[in-house]
């Protein structure tokens, strides 16, 4: 039997075209031994939820720099739940004002990472969150 691999979807919802951060994180997760499914730019919440379902991922990482996170993040959480994937942990990276963080966490976002976060922290937290509650 192969050991359990952590599968993470890294997606960029919304309209901003800056994917450097998403690519750096994708690369870091890969180097930590995870399987990263990278979807590219300008994904709708529906596309992201569908990809998460087809790929049976343990976690979804969203990169948002457009300021639309308060609209996009809850929509994606809602779609994941509707698809029966409430076990999937959702992480958020990009430009997220501090005052939005508590509300996003209440909505169900597991981790939020702004500029300057070390990739080791992201890797460690994703791994901890996913392994606490193994995906069914």
């Amino acid at each position, binding site marked *: *039997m*192969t050991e*359990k*691999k952590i*599968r993470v979807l890294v997606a960029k919802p919304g309209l901003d075209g800056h994917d450097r951060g998403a690519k750096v994180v*994708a*690369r870091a*997760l*890969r*180097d*930590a*031994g*995870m*399987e*990263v*499914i*990278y*979807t*590219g730019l300008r*994904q*709708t919440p*529906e*596309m992201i939820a*569908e*990809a998460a*379902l*087809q*790929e*049976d991922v343990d976690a979804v990482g969203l990169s948002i720099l457009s300021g639309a996170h308060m609209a996009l993040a809850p929509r994606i959480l809602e779609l994941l739940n509707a*698809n*029966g*994937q409430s076990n999937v942990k959702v992480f958020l990276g990009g430009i997220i004002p501090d005052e939005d963080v508590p509300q996003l966490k209440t909505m169900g976002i597991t981790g939020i990472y702004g500029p300057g976060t070390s990739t080791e922290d992201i890797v460690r937290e994703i791994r901890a969150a996913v392994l606490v509650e193994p*995906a*069914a």
Partner: protein
Amino acid sequence: MTNLVEALLAGDRLALSRLLTQVENGTQDGRSALNELFQHTGNAHLVGVTGAPGVGKSSLVNQLALHFRKHSNKTIAIIAVDPTSPFTGGAVLGDRVRMRNLAGDAGVFIRSMASRGTLGGLAHATSAMVQVFDAAGFDIVLIETVGAGQAEVDIARLAHTTLVVDAPGMGDDIQAIKAGILEIADILVINKADRPGLENTERALRGMLEMAHPVKRIFQHHGKFEIAESASDEQDNTAQLWIPPIQKTIATDGTGIPELAESIGRHASYLESSGDWSLRERSRLETELDALIQDTLTNQFRSKLPEEAYDRVLVRILERELSPWEAVETLMNGRHT
């Protein structure tokens, strides 16, 4: 697990996705699911798409899937394999980037897969995942792999129809001859046909096809082609034989896709009318049975062998006391203790 199987057969996509994970990870649950699902397999047309990195396989798969969805009511499953890093065991699977216009269509299911680097394991896991899609009722399963040698041949062996994709400027005509990968092609595709050098690539491929003697080719499990006697021996004509067509496409704008899709359809009809379909099924399942026997025996043997004994023998090989063959004999005969 039975619940997941029932849900899958009823068309539940989450159940399908979770079963794919179980099967890919080779869990006991996955295995029992495969046992239940196997009776429902054997209906899908399995199409392999292979070729060197960067020739446009993902874009081509995307266009083919769009075409089939638009012009038929066939449902499409896609397995996109990308390499696992041999150093970290991680992978970035990026084929979905090129398949974004398939999103939102319930008749399409895309699954990315990392090669995970276990010897022979890739073909095995892929074959198991193909069975899950087949049982779930998908009409066409497209299997996309990175062109990297033997793994391609293994996966091509899974497919009924194998597309080998090339592009202008990918290498000279010697590449075309030496690469055994071209011999597995049922259909040759020259993608990026708007690029300079198209004529050279086409000439090289055509030359290679002309040099090849057209024979009925069926894979055997030890990797050689069996030259099958044609159904009625006396009619020794080549009309019965499939000559791989060369299709020119531009995957980014869809040029040549209808013709390619038509070729795939014609190959399926050819396989059925010539009897090759069942021959291929047979050799495919034979390969799979062999691989499973190998895996099972290896696992059985290794589970009885203490780790220290293995390490001791390995050290003796390192010190050149034993050759690897002698080491195997030592272990098999239990003389390592």
